[in-house]
């Protein structure tokens, strides 16, 4: 009962609600900075232009970009879960067709009861690599997806541990923050690609007058922000997901009372060679195990530690084993 320790569910939920708001506000503010910054720079440039030339006096860019960002955030909130599922090519189980699907549905139903949340919708990703993720905006509108590889590899108990881990994310509202983040990261990447094509200097207007150093600094900072936007978004995604994996592991143990099953599931997932090809970078932080992690570790060495979306698997397994043995000891006495 108290094995998993005080989980402070409400604090975690509150923190996730708050962080989602901060994320959205930050997202809009960042685009406002890009827009109004651009307006200001353009204003400074065109201020000294001849009378007949265009003078940039109304902050069109700022208004358009801010409104656009707000619209994207709203759209992301409404359609984020669908987009995430769509990007992985998951198919929903409405009526279970086979014994394995039947078992998955049963396991999810059991865990939803244990967690005290409504049953989420269930999806399967046709990928041979074992992995799983949850998405949604709240426990009433949530989705759990597992790969075919996970179903093939895991026993019933192990599957239960993994599903309980995902329901942990659902219950403490991690899914809201992480899905929102996935939607916004995707939007930033898309907009960056699109706008850098537009912004690329085509015909540089030859200007005789040297702009003041202040304008130059502003311009540099502004351009750097443009370049950094996707990287910042990525780093946000990394920082946000690492700690909550431990918490979701602990919640899984609380729901199943069987931390050893999740530990052995994680070991199997870790042992599988192939990366999860169906799950792209944008949704990586939603998964139980990093679908790209192995590529990161093999290619970037030192950076792998700083750039991994997930905590080291060995440590998670060790913590779960610790819980399991403590439980066994208790039962024996």
């Amino acid at each position, binding site marked *: *009962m108290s094995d998993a320790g005080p989980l402070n569910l409400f604090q975690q939920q509150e923190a996730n609600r708050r962080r989602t708001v901060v994320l959205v506000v930050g997202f809009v503010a960042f685009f406002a900075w890009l827009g109004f910054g651009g307006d200001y720079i353009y204003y400074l440039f065109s201020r000294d232009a001849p009378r007949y030339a265009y003078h940039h006096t109304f902050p069109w860019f700022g208004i358009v970009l801010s409104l656009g960002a707000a619209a994207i955030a709203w759209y992301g909130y409404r359609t984020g879960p669908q987009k995430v599922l769509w990007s992985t090519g998951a198919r929903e189980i409405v009526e279970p067709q086979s*014994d394995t699907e*039947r*078992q998955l549905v*049963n*396991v999810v*139903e*059991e*865990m939803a*009861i*244990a*967690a*005290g949340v409504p049953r989420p919708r269930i999806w399967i990703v046709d990928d041979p690599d074992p992995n799983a993720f949850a998405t949604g905006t709240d426990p009433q509108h949530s989705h759990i997806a597992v790969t075919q590889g996970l179903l093939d590899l895991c026993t*019933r*108990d192990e599957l239960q541990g993994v599903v309980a881990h995902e329901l942990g994310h659902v219950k403490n509202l991690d899914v809201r923050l992480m899905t929102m983040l996935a939607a916004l990261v995707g939007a930033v990447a898309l907009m960056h690609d699109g706008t850098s094509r537009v912004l690329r200097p085509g015909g540089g207007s030859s200007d005789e007058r040297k702009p003041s150093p202040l304008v130059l600094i502003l311009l540099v900072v502004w351009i750097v922000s443009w370049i950094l936007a996707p990287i910042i978004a990525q780093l946000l995604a990394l920082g946000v997901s690492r700690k909550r994996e431990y918490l979701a592991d602990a919640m899984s143990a609380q*729901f199943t*009372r*069987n931390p050893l*099953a999740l530990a052995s599931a994680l070991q199997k997932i870790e042992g599988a060679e192939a990366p999860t090809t169906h799950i792209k970078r944008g949704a990586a932080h939603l998964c139980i195990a990093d679908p790209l992690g192995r590529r990161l570790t093999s290619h970037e060495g030192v950076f792998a530690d700083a750039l991994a979306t997930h905590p080291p698997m060995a440590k998670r397994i060790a913590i779960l084993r610790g819980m399991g043995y403590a439980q066994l000891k208790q039962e024996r006495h």
Partner: protein
Amino acid sequence: MGPLVLLIVLVVVAAWVIAAYNGLIALKNQTLNAFKQIDVQLKRRHDLIPNLVNAVRGAMDFEKSTLEAVIQARNQAVKVNATGPEGIKQISQAENALSSALQRLMVVVEQYPQLRATGNIGQLQEELTSTENKVAFARQLYNDTATQYNTKQQQFPTSLVAGLAKAQPADLWEIEDQGEKAVPQVDLSLKPKT
């Protein structure tokens, strides 16, 4: 200055009383809801058992007594008329008897590999496992919520408003060991125990 301090103290105390009272009420309703969940799962189990028994009756002519025990335990459990957390002792007794009867059935099914070979039995086993798990997890959620509720209402200083919120310690759902001890657990499959 004096009245102002007094006023602030009063407001703080009132705010605390309201928060503590609402916290207790919320937990009380959660406990009731968790109990309803057990009820839902038990009903589901009661409805499922006749179908299960019919499905295996043909294949299990030689284990009549086990099936009879399951049916009897099921009918006993359905007959229990108690509702709500107050009747928990009565309900849990009948349901625990049913659980052990079902467990015996599962052990029997395990023992006859030729039974398990027919596709039907595999599905049946999955359904039985899932049904038992659902009951167990609903019970677990209830016990966890009820424990939280009980702890909250007994802890100082929340205990001061427990009377106001009409908080009564909720009974936990006990799992009787005797029922489980009576089951001869014969498992020759060398599968790791869960």
